[in-house]
């Protein structure tokens, strides 16, 4: 592959976009994995109960809140 093609602005932009998408995908996948274990304790039914779906949404948002707190805590240690 021609290096100049890889370095072109268009290609850089494309790679950055894909990287960002991959990170977001990864985050959703990871939180789904974690929150599934926390919130779905019974055998999966034909639809989520309202408490299960609320738990999933809360779980994801609290995980983010928590990571902010932890990040701050670490920054204050330096």
């Amino acid at each position, binding site marked *: *592959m*021609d290096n100049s*093609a890889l370095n*072109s602005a*268009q*290609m850089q932009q*494309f790679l950055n976009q*894909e990287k960002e*998408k*991959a990170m*977001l*995908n990864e*985050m*959703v*996948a990871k*939180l*789904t*994995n974690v*929150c*599934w274990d926390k919130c*779905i304790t019974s*055998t*999966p*039914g*034909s639809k*989520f109960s309202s408490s299960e*779906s609320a738990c*999933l*949404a*809360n*779980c*994801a*948002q609290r995980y*983010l809140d928590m990571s902010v707190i932890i990040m701050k805590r670490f920054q204050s240690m330096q």
Partner: protein
Amino acid sequence: MDSFTSSASGAGSSQFSNEEFMDKLKLQLAQAYAQEFLETVTGKCFEKCITKPGSSLSGSESSCVSRCVDRYIEATGIIGRALFSAQR
């Protein structure tokens, strides 16, 4: 993967256009993501539905598995919306 390394080194002749490369990369990323998702769902639903493995999959186990897969997909949607719509 092979297809593009081999043609990329192919005798210096026709190299890929950017567009071709982008399409291939997107396809491979999508495949990798689907593969990972499949593995995760298989693991989660095995845990939930096959609690005592018998000599064959029972009817209730297989219906549990299909409900589980549907719910896992739904859960992924709920999490995605919780992260990216409402507050941020």
